[in-house]
C-alpha cells in the first residue's frame, strides 16, 4: 500500500504533467479547483474544462472552497489542487475537512518545497522537514498518501473516482515553471464554472 511511501522517497514529478494527468484521467464530470498561483496556472495550461475553477487570490482557500462545492454537490467528485505554501497558510482546514468527511472530495497537495512563484524561497515545512501528508493523516484524513511516481498517481486518482473519501494525495514536484498563466477575470471564471456545474441553470441567457 502506498502509505508506505514517505516524503523523502516520493519521486519529484515534472509539475506541468500533474494537472494534465489529472484532467486526462477523470473525464468531464468531476470539478477541479486550482489553488492560488502555479496550482491554477497548471490547471489552465492543461486545457480549460467547463468544471475547472481557478483561484487567483486569497492564499490558502482552495480546500475550503472545494469543501463548499463538495457539500453542495455530493454526487459529483471534487478535486482540489493546492500548493504546499498555501496549505501551510491554512493547515487547519485539513481538520475541518476530516471532521465533515465529504466522501466526494479529493485533495492533491502539490509540494515543491518552495514559494516558487515569488522566487523559489524554501517553505518553513521544507526547512523543518514537515511531512504534509503525515500532517493530513494526523488531522484525520486517514487515506492521505504520497504518490511514489506517475503510475501510482494514476492509480490513486482512479481510487478517488471510485472509493469514498475524503482523499488526499501528496505529490513531490520539481521546480519547473508553469507553462501558462490563467486569464485574470474572476467574475468570468466564476460564471463559467457555475454554468458548468449547473448552478446557474435557471438563469442561463442562451
Amino acid at each position, binding site marked *: 500500500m502506498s502509505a508506505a511511501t514517505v516524503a523523502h522517497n516520493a519521486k519529484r514529478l515534472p509539475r506541468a504533467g500533474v494537472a494534465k494527468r489529472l484532467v486526462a484521467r477523470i473525464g468531464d464530470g468531476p*470539478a477541479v*479547483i486550482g489553488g492560488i498561483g502555479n496550482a491554477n496556472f497548471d490547471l489552465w495550461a492543461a486545457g480549460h474544462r467547463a468544471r475547472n*475553477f481557478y483561484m*487567483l*487570490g*486569497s492564499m*490558502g*482557500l*482552495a480546500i*475550503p*472552497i*472545494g*469543501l*463548499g*462545492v*463538495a*457539500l*453542495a*454537490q455530493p454526487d459529483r467528485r471534487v478535486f482540489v489542487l493546492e500548493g504546499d505554501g498555501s496549505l501551510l497558510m*491554512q493547515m*487547519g*482546514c485539513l*481538520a*475541518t475537512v476530516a*471532521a*465533515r468527511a465529504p466522501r466526494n472530495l479529493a485533495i492533491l497537495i502539490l509540494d515543491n518545497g518552495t514559494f516558487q512563484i515569488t522566487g523559489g524561497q524554501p517553505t518553513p515545512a521544507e526547512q523543518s522537514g514537515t511531512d504534509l501528508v503525515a500532517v493530513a493523516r494526523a488531522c484525520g484524513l486517514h487515506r492521505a498518501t504520497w504518490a511514489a511516481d506517475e503510475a501510482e498517481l494514476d492509480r490513486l486518482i482512479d481510487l478517488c473516482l471510485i472509493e469514498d473519501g475524503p482523499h488526499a494525495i501528496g505529490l513531490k514536484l520539481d521546480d519547473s515553471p508553469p507553462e501558462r498563466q490563467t486569464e485574470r477575470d*474572476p*467574475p468570468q*471564471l*466564476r460564471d463559467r*464554472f*457555475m454554468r458548468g*456545474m*449547473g*448552478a*446557474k441553470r435557471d438563469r442561463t441567457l442562451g
Partner: protein
Amino acid sequence: MPDAADTDWPDQIYDLLKAHGIRQVALVPDAGHARLIRRCLADNTMKVVSLTTEEEGVAMLFGAWLGGEKGVLLMQSSGVGNCINMLSVAVAHRTPCPMLVTMRGEYGEFNPFQVPMGQATPTVLEAMGTLLNRADRPEDVAPGVDATLRLAFNTFRPAATLLGQRLLGAKTFGR
C-alpha cells in the same frame, strides 16, 4: 424575567435561514450564537461546518455558491479580523457572503482585549465592501438579518448584520 419576545430572536434568525433556503452554515462558535447553532444542528437539511478559523467560512460559502447552494457565516466580531483578506473572494467574483456577527468590545465589555477588534469591526467590514446593519434591540434582529440575506443573495456581495452586545447581554464569565 425577560419577555419571550426579547429572547426568541435566535429562533427568528433560524426561521429566516430556512425561508431563504440556506443549506450550508459555517461557523466558529460564539456564546451569542449558541441557540441558533443548536437549531441549525438539529436541522437535517442544513450542513453545519465548524471551522478552525473564520476565513475558511468565507471560502466555503463561496464554494457553496459555485455549487448552487446558499450558505451563511456565523462568527464573533474578533473573527471578522481573520476574514479581511478573504473577503476579496466575494468582492472579486461578485458572490454573496452573508455574515451574522455577534459583537464584543462594546456595550459593557469586561475584557480589554476585545475592544480593539470589536470597535474596528464595522470599519474593517466596510473597507472590504461589506454592507452593514446593526441590531441592538430584539425587534431589530429579524428585519436586519432578512435585509442582509436579501442584499447578499440578490446583489452578490458581502453583507453583515452586527448583533450588538446590548442585545446579547455583556459577557461576564462570572465576574
